[in-house]
């Protein structure tokens, strides 16, 4: 298990990553809040699961939203008419990918190196995600007027897991949106 402070710092960085992703992305989300009051969606919903592993940690993030909300996250003008299930699922998968990518890049500064899997998406009603006995988990919610997206972080930590000072190496990774030509 990581120290409580290390786990909480990871949750803080997850919030920072989600905030930056929403603010910089073309998702049509305005005036959102980040919270921990989570109600599992009951209507048909879309989910994306993305695993990760490192030397002393492994786990996954799960993001989910009711289908009607997830459909609004598809950029306007992307498709003619309403987005299909495939498009909505793909968008959620890419959101999970960019969210975990941002978290990964931030944790590099603290000496934590994660390898990311590729997203798996699902669509259905009353879907519940179980948790392994050894895993630590926290569920957050990004909420705004048009709906909410939940973000769940699950991880198993080895006893030797350490998270260094995240502000000690601000250039540990390239910055999102930047480009380098060789």
């Amino acid at each position, binding site marked *: 298990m990581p120290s409580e402070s290390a786990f909480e710092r990871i949750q803080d960085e997850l919030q920072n990553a989600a905030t930056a992703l929403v603010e910089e992305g073309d998702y049509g989300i305005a005036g959102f809040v980040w919270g921990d009051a989570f109600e599992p969606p009951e209507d048909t919903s879309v989910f994306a699961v993305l695993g990760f592993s490192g030397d002393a940690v492994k786990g996954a993030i799960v993001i989910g939203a009711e289908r009607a909300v997830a459909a609004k996250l598809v950029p306007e003008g992307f498709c003619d008419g309403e987005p299909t299930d495939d498009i909505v699922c793909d968008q959620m998968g890419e959101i999970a990918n960019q969210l975990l990518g941002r978290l990964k890049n931030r944790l590099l500064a603290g000496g934590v190196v994660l390898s990311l*899997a590729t997203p798996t998406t699902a669509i259905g009603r009353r879907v519940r995600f179980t948790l392994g006995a050894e895993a630590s988990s926290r569920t957050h919610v990004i909420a705004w007027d048009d709906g909410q997206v939940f973000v769940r972080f699950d991880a198993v930590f080895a006893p030797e897991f350490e998270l260094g000072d995240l502000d000690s190496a601000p250039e540990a990774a390239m910055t999102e949106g930047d480009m380098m030509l060789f």
Partner: protein
Amino acid sequence: MGAKVLVVDDSMMIRTQVSKALAGAGFAVVQAGDGSEALKKLDAEKDVSLVVCDVNMPTMNGIEFLESVRASEAHAAISVVMLTTEGQHDLVQRAKSLGAKGWIMKPFKPDLLIAAAKKLTAAA
């Protein structure tokens, strides 16, 4: 029609958004969903000048694709630029050592992508 670009990403959203940006700037665009499919597309489409390629993909990832391209006499001269969420400097250096021409962090800025594509296809 301008130079031909192959866009490689397992996300349909990203492939479409990148393709739209490049097509709007006059490029001809073809797509592939992973590195293995991209190699087949390079064999089928003889005049690809530039590949814009994700890193984390199923079947064959972007680094493995880069290794295959560099090992292929037919494709070794094609410019490849990576478009990814990965920001680790050692991964960037690995791609550079394999002959990649650039590294773009998602979410991409269309004007930067287009400028890079114009520069890299003009040099070809």
